[in-house]
């Protein structure tokens, strides 16, 4: 029997250094351990030329499962990933692979609350519907800034729920099922109290401004009329 193919599409402009890649590739490793063949593509690189775009479209047509992993930008999917979704849907409107293909997504935002991710979750589900994929669900989390592109094993016990959610999702996907509600629920749990995340983030921003010597210009208004 031919092995199932998984394709990870990373929608972060930071590519391999991104939290989106950390989360997506962690899931991909679990799928590979379960017997799947896996490949990964960075959106920025795919949109770079006609050739790389064609390569992505080809890999997508071959995949049984496509995993989109991306950060939230201004309440939504980042523009380059929307462009990618538009191109995929356009291609599939004319030519759709014979095999049934599943998609799932992972989204994380820098805000502490998971509610910010809701429109992006809706958009990915709507894309699946319009482009003719089987929707396998989405894992969404806040406080993505805490991971900051580090491997999950280096982020410590704070991310234990993220690891558990990815484990549950991978097991379900390997069985050919959608992501269980439990996985989505665990993924959405705050990594720490909101007040602590806010204090840490604001302290971090002030420290970075001081380090760069820009603290006094932090609230500059260069475009004020």
């Amino acid at each position: 029997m031919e092995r199932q193919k998984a394709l990870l599409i990373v929608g972060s402009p930071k590519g391999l250094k991104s939290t989106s890649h950390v989360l997506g590739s962690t899931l991909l490793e679990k799928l590979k351990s379960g017997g799947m063949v896996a490949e990964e593509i960075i959106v920025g690189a795919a949109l770079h030329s006609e050739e790389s775009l064609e390569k992505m479209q080809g890999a997508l047509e071959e995949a049984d499962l496509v995993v989109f992993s991306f950060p939230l930008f201004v309440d939504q999917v980042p523009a380059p990933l929307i462009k990618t979704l538009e191109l995929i849907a356009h291609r599939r409107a004319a030519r759709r692979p014979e095999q049934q293909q599943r998609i799932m997504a992972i989204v994380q935002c820098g805000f502490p609350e998971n509610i910010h991710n809701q429109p992006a979750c809706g958009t990915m589900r709507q894309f699946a519907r319009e482009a003719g994929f089987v929707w396998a669900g989405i894992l969404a989390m806040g406080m993505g800034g805490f991971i900051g592109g580090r491997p999950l094993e280096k982020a410590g016990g704070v991310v234990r729920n993220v690891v558990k959610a990815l484990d549950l999702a991978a097991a379900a996907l390997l069985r050919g099922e959608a992501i269980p509600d439990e996985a989505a629920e665990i993924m959405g749990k705050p990594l720490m109290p909101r007040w602590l995340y806010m204090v840490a983030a604001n302290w971090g921003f002030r420290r970075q401004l001081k380090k760069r010597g820009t603290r006094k210009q932090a609230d500059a208004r260069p475009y004020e009329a």
Partner: protein
Amino acid sequence: MNILILNGAPLNGRGAAHIIIRKAIENESAARGLNVTAFDLAGMDIKPCHGCFACWLKHPGVCAIRDDQENVLRAMAASDVVVWTTPVTFGGYSSELKKALDRFIPNLLPFFALVKGEVHHPHRYVRMRKLMVLGTLPVPSPDSEKVFRMLVDRNALNMHSTNTQVALLREDAVETGIQHAVKELFEKAEVL
């Protein structure tokens, strides 16, 4: 009063209605004595956001990428009313509109603050503004429309919009229908 129109229509068939929509918004603005600044984003050199945060930390308020977005940011800072027009794309905005919205980050401050019980970024500029969004659909789609309205609500919260209005039109809407919808939008938003 300054009105900024961001036209997110792509350079393909889905953008046709937006030519009429833009004209209707310009006419309605002129009738109300507003100063209009309009950008057709599809033809502009606006590169994707790098997510580098240099606009917060390295040179606050100014993006590291120097392209046409600088003009959009300047107009945004000076606006009292903002209008976004877009084909509804999987319940969201077109990639053309979104490429500009992703680059609005310089107009925010990096710090976290509580707004209506949620964490958001405070605005760099004091001026408050109204938001009107016009989306077009090839056929009615309740699921898509629901996501779209939710997205606009979230953006309005982040923008601290003082009055937010949404209109959804068919891509094949006739000119008089578009003009009527635009007029209604201005009235609901109380753009006087």
